[in-house]
């Protein structure tokens, strides 16, 4: 059986920029963030928690979050490490290179972008050496939550124009395998919006939120 995601029967939720700060949404997620899950009266935030809940509730194929003790530990290890590293640095570059310029109307000084790029490269090397190594996927021969989470995070700096896969053939190969395992069309569909992020202009964002986002993001990159 291929590694296709089982689509649970949930309603589609489109959250236009800023809508996650409305009162209605607040009921789902007191922390007013996305992603958020609502299953009846049960609400859940934090992407890793949501992913694990879905694998358990819908009994997805074992490779996503293996029952083998050591393999499962490797997934946990990656999901924990990635927060401050791949996610942290990938996000930082995306915010520095793309998001802040969109919000403020001007680019940040080149040293900031270079610095963020450098930091990302350090963790990319760690990713290749410690987590991926010479395996097809992070936890061996099959795709798991670790690969999924890793790739979607790496698409952020890609969307900002940093072609990190170009200079790293091993990563590019891994990316191809992950895309195939989830289904190329699904992968493209999921990334359509972010890959067109450069077409977002500040006026698409509610004015009262623009300032708030700007301040948050500037704090994040300093």
């Amino acid at each position, binding site marked *: 059986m291929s590694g296709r995601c089982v689509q649970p029967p949930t309603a589609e939720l489109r959250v236009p920029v800023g809508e996650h700060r409305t009162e209605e949404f607040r009921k789902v997620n007191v922390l007013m963030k996305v992603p958020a899950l609502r299953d009846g009266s*049960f609400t859940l*935030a934090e992407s890793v928690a949501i992913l694990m*809940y879905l694998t*358990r509730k819908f009994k997805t194929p074992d490779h996503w979050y293996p029952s083998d003790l*050591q393999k*499962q*530990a490797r997934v946990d*290890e990656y999901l924990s490490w990635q*927060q401050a590293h791949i996610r942290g640095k990938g996000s930082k570059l995306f915010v520095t290179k793309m998001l802040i310029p969109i919000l403020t109307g001007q680019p940040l000084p080149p040293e900031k972008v270079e610095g963020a790029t450098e930091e990302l490269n350090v963790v990319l090397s760690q990713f290749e050496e410690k987590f991926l190594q010479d395996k097809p996927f992070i936890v061996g021969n099959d795709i798991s939550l670790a690969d999924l989470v890793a790739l979607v995070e790496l698409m952020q700096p890609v969307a900002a124009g940093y072609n990190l896969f170009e200079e790293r053939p091993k990563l590019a190969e891994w990316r191809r395998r992950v895309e195939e395992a989830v289904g190329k069309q699904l992968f493209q569909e999921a990334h359509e919006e972010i890959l067109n992020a450069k077409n977002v202009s500040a006026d698409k964002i509610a004015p009262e939120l623009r300032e708030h986002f700007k301040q948050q993001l500037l704090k994040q990159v300093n």
Partner: protein
Amino acid sequence: MGLELYLDLLSQPCRSIYIFARTNNIPFEFKHVELFKGPSNSEGDGKISLLKKVPVLKDGDFTLAECTAILLYLSRKYNTPDHWYPSDIKKRAQVDEYLSWHHANIRANAPKTMWIKVLIPLFTGQPQPSEKLQEVMEGLSTSLKQFEERFLQDKAFIIGSEISLADLVAIVELMQPVGVGCDIFEDRPRLMEWRRRVEEAVGKELFFQAHEMILNIKELSNIQIDPQLKEHLAPVLMKMLK
């Protein structure tokens, strides 16, 4: 060769693992890693950690890092009581949710109190301006508010009537500021009550033993820090605070 846990009890994640293993009577060899001693004093094979990272678990030839991963591995391998990481998927999800949020919130600020008040002055020889601490305490205050309103609420423990990994990971982090004189429990009676319950649930003696070093942090000013390490870390620490 049995289970080995490489720990320095100065580190919060190490304390949660130490307490968890001890309170569940999991047999292990405590491999003391002293974070502030230089490479010439390190023990253990180079394979574990040239960078002296803690915590690390070694089980035969299986090596594992990252606190959450280690705690989950121990809970599964040693079949610890269900309440630590409940089999009920909703309760389990709540533990996962807390552990994830904790990283970016409580853990973003709580450790900095020790860096600012003790470690950075120790390494650089200079005290830090009070605004730095103020900023960190404000950030921590915001996280603590969310902690009480979203996670703890009126329950005995984060996910209900019994202690879980979520409470353990939270408490060790919050003891860090306490150790350096920023008692965040002082004006927060609900948190204080929760802390008392957590201490009782793991065992008061074990709790205090695990926290002995951090609660006697002044002793740290007397330790000999490897001068190479001092030189190496000082700029890193300064950058950390920006």
